[in-house]
């Protein structure tokens, strides 16, 4: 066993940056706790897949250091580490196209001493995958399910899943969610999953990492985030409310929404008490969905970049 005790992060990225001609990732500081499911959520080309490739040592960062399962990346013993990881890339490898699925599995298993043929069979059964088919003859969804089965068949300690559900039908999707929960049951395993499907995050994640334009906007405990972020509506114009509401706890955004003022807070309970103490009654309120929160965070990021560091909001 790896001997990692409680509190050891599954992944630790310190000051990691990576430059390409058209894209710059980082600097990223991130700790993914072991024993939990952490979802990376962000718009397209926010750097999620690049992050996975860096973690898998498929690309080298320009700066910073990366530790995965307690091992430094780029410091030898690469194969030993990779055997403890299950990585599902965003796109299937095109070089595999001409192989039958069973031949790919045959090749794949040679790299993994922990390969469990019964587990592999069980997963094929669960997903109803016919592994006698050639990979390029499979539908997108079936190929995804086959790759997912391969990813899990050597009992990895860490799963890196890059948009695992793309192409899955709703039934297979449910099966996948359930499978991943059961994978986590033992308590010492870790999942890092990139996704932009809100429902997937809701059902799976313990922690959420927001990413945009190559930067980490923040890491949150899911339930705290979803119960903390609310929006309040006040009838009237921004002019009459701006002064009054600017001190509202957790205020993230305050804007005119056509005849009503919309105030977004990341600390709903504090804001509630604060409003009550001032006898201010909102005309309405609403909890926010994950995508609304992401949008608000991206918006705030842009605003802060414009303003420099002055006018920092909580």
């Amino acid at each position, binding site marked *: 066993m790896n001997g990692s005790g409680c509190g050891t992060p599954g992944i630790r990225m310190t000051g990691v940056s990576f430059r390409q001609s058209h894209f710059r990732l980082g600097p990223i500081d991130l700790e993914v706790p072991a024993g939990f499911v952490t979802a990376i959520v962000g718009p397209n080309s926010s750097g999620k897949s690049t992050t996975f490739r860096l973690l898998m040592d498929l690309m080298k960062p320009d700066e910073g250091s990366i530790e995965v399962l307690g091992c430094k990346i780029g410091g030898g013993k690469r194969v030993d580490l990779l055997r403890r990881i299950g990585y599902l890339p965003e796109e299937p490898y095109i070089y595999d196209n001409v192989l039958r699925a069973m031949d790919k599995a045959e090749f794949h298993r040679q790299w993994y001493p922990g390969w469990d043929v019964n587990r592999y069979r069980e997963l094929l059964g669960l997903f109803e995958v016919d592994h006698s088919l050639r990979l390029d003859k499979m539908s997108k969804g079936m190929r995804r399910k086959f790759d997912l089965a391969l990813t899990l068949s050597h009992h990895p300690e860490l799963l890196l899943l890059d948009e695992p559900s793309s192409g899955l039908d709703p039934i297979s999707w449910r099966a996948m969610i*359930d499978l991943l929960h059961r994978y986590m049951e033992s308590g010492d395993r870790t999942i890092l999953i990139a996704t932009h499907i809100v429902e997937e995050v*809701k059902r799976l994640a*313990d922690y959420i990492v927001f990413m945009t334009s190559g930067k980490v906007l923040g890491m949150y405990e899911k339930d705290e985030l979803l119960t903390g972020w609310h929006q309040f509506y006040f009838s009237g114009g921004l002019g009459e409310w701006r002064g009054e509401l600017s001190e509202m706890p957790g205020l993230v955004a305050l804007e005119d929404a056509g005849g009503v003022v919309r105030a977004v807070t990341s600390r709903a*309970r504090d804001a509630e008490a604060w409003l009550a103490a001032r006898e201010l009654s909102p005309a309405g309120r609403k*909890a926010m969905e994950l995508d609304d929160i992401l949008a608000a965070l991206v918006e705030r990021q842009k605003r802060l970049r414009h303003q420099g560091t002055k006018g920092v909001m909580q």
Partner: protein
Amino acid sequence: MWMSIQLNEYSAEPLYHQIEVQLRALIVSGQLKEGTLLPSIREMAQHLKCSVITIRRVYQDLEAEGLIVTRQGTGTFVAKVDPVERSRHRLEPVIAAMREAVAAGLRVRCSDEELRELFENALREARENRSPRGDGVNRTAEGENEG
């Protein structure tokens, strides 16, 4: 039985608190009997679509209150509830609700007499509105979707 726990995701009340209140009520009311095996933390989280962090907190709190016990390797079980404890727990929310109602009455300057009358009326109404004695099975209909 624990499956009946329902969360209001649109409330600002922390999820761990919502779950704790309901699970505690199920245990002290005896709806979850002593020795009942509770789902694992991960299973409960999956069912309620919340994080294991939340469920772990709930289990820790209820364990500290002596309402559940975790046996290493076997799981988490409902503990024996002391009868005195049970009646205290049972009445706690009622007492709180009564206080709440009295405070509401006093805010609009009800007299004691008025309050007593309101209480009697509410009680009578509740008794009268109770469905006539049925088959003894108290099953709530699941929400059915109609197109």
